[in-house]
């Protein structure tokens, strides 16, 4: 713990200021630039959420909570809760699949060729835009699609399974592959960095495979899990192509709602919805900080893996 304290340096605002200035001009320049290109636009966005639109024009004269209230009245809030639910479900599913896969890839797969091939295959979703990736599922999952046709021809089902397309199932299914790499890679990276001698020592001390997993590997891989969750959850919250194309209009998410507002020049509504996203992401960051503090400061999260 002393080591971690040394790495963290002095705490509090004064400590933060001291650390920032000790880095010379680099950090202040970064902070100033970041404030200009990120923070100030965000503040303007929040301000916009209190303005009004009348007949395609934004009015600046009477800031109010009207737009925020309209988010409740119009049912746009349901898009928020739906987005959160889908994001949480998918993140958990991704984590449950990605962790054992990453563990096998990092520690179980002995062939360098196989490992390289799998890593290459995992990057494929990054090469294709979302629409091209998703549109192919429609003729496969549809009522007259490949799966239903084959199953009906084989006599396994009598009626096409309509729930396979234009449903929450389809949205979850369609978002599994595109967001899998963002969960796998950070976990794989961290697991690769865990020294095999830790695992060997655990075995030598009589731990079962389960005990080694839960008491050695899992705690050491926490930085990768946190990173994987963040890298997967954040884009999932902003996703709207997959829900749009596979949800068939029945899975209206935050991105759809913001897009619809922008299409109608309702910038204050889009700003209010985006502010909501920001608040949710800020809450996520707080949770992340709380979790990561158990293993040291956020900035030194990977340091805890050092021997």
């Amino acid at each position, binding site marked *: 713990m002393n080591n971690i304290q040394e790495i963290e340096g002095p705490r509090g605002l004064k400590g933060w200021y001291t650390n920032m200035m000790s880095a010379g001009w680099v950090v202040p320049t970064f902070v100033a630039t970041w404030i200009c290109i990120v923070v100030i636009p965000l503040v303007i966005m929040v301000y916009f959420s209190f303005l009004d639109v009348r007949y395609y024009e934004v009015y600046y004269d009477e800031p109010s909570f009207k737009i925020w209230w309209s988010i409740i009245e119009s049912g746009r809030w349901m898009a928020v809760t739906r987005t959160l639910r889908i994001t949480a479900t998918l993140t958990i599913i991704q984590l449950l699949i990605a962790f054992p896969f990453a563990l096998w890839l990092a520690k179980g797969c002995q062939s360098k060729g196989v490992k390289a091939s799998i890593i290459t295959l995992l990057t494929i979703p990054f090469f294709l835009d979302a629409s091209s990736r998703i549109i192919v599922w429609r003729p496969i999952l*549809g009522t007259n699609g490949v799966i239903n046709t084959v199953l009906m021809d084989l006599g396994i089902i009598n009626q096409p399974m309509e729930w396979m397309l234009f449903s929450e199932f389809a949205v979850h299914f369609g978002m599994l592959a595109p967001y899998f790499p963002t969960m796998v890679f950070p976990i794989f990276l961290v697991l690769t960095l865990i020294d095999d001698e830790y695992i060997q020592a655990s075995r030598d001390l009589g731990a079962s495979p389960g005990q080694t997993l839960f008491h050695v590997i899992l705690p050491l891989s926490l930085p990768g899990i946190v990173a994987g969750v963040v890298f997967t959850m954040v884009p999932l919250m902003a996703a709207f192509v997959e829900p749009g194309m596979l949800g*068939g209009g029945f899975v209206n998410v935050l991105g759809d*709602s913001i897009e619809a507002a922008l299409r109608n*020049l309702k910038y204050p509504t889009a700003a209010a919805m985006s502010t909501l996203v920001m608040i949710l992401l800020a809450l996520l960051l707080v949770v992340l900080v709380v979790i990561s503090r158990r293993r040291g400061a956020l900035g030194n999260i990977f340091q805890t893996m050092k021997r």
Partner: protein
Amino acid sequence: MSKFEPTRRDVVKGAAAGVVVAAASSFDPAKQALAASNVVTGYGVTTSQLKDWSIMTASIGLEMQWTGTNADIGTYMRDVISNDLGETHDIFIFDGGTEDILGPKGHYAVLQEDHPELTLWDRTSDDWKRTDLLKDAAGVQYGVPVIGNGDSFGYFPDKLGASADGMDEISFEMLYESEVTRGRCATDQSWLLSGSEMAHYCKHHGRVEIEDATDCTGAEMRQVVDIAIEWKKAGQFRTLHTAFEEQVQLLANREVDIINCWEPATKNANLELGADIVKYAFTVEGYYKWGHGAYMHVKAKDRGNVDNIHKMLNYYMSGEYRAYQAEQRGYAGPNMDLGIEYATANGWSEDQIANLAWTEKKVNKKFEKPFFGKPAAIHAAEMEEEWQRFLNV
């Protein structure tokens, strides 16, 4: 009351002026070049384009420099108002209705109907040129008609028990609340199209008292959406679509039996399914009216290119443009007779000429029913808010 007045381009110009004020104010080579040449610049929906502008160049000697956009009114308004495209573009083409806002605000120029280059104006029928899609609320004429249609829905006649020739008048009931089509219907996600059509249906059948179905108040739209939510909860809709490609795919895959869509979607689907498998409906209740208007920007008046711009506006009403638009996209427009005349004089095939004649006949049949549609409705914001309830349930 304060409004956001300066455009983005004005701000950039203001900043730039401090550095290059002398040069910028005295000489603009781009403007000079355009004024001296036969080039007309246009911005608007891609459906109004000829697929090959060289046909027009050979015919009237003008060149078109076209910048396309989609049918998203938000993007269009932003580009005209905030990005001030009038600085660089002469002609704007979009769904009629935008002149209600952009005319009085000083972006669109009032149409000079007696301009010598506007030779076809007088012979163009009032059905096309005097539509409210080209005039503002005060009746001031800003645009010339380009193309238009009455939108309804595509359907498989055998699934609805309708005649195979597609001449039956089908009720929107089939789309919204018929057990025959339950779970096999698709409607557009946009409030502008689907919301207006549902409101018109409810008004037509006395389900909701509405003064103007294309410009419902919040209270009127709330009642319409409440009914639409019942349809949705009953499982009427298989999907709510958003794009032209989706319309084609849903029909071509036979994922739905009936879908409100653009007419070319049925044409494209039939390319995959076979001729005349999908029909575009003649309806009982009427049609969602849309028409593209061509408008000259006020700022184009100072570019010394006004005659060419009017020559271009006139071309949109000509037989050549009409024939190619109908042939390539199946859309009608003013002076269809000139289109047929052009095709005949230029040796088009009998099939092509028959198709042009059918386009004219089809539009005339549609005109027997009510037409409705208002892209820039005064209550657009309220309608969109209520529509969100339909999408979010």
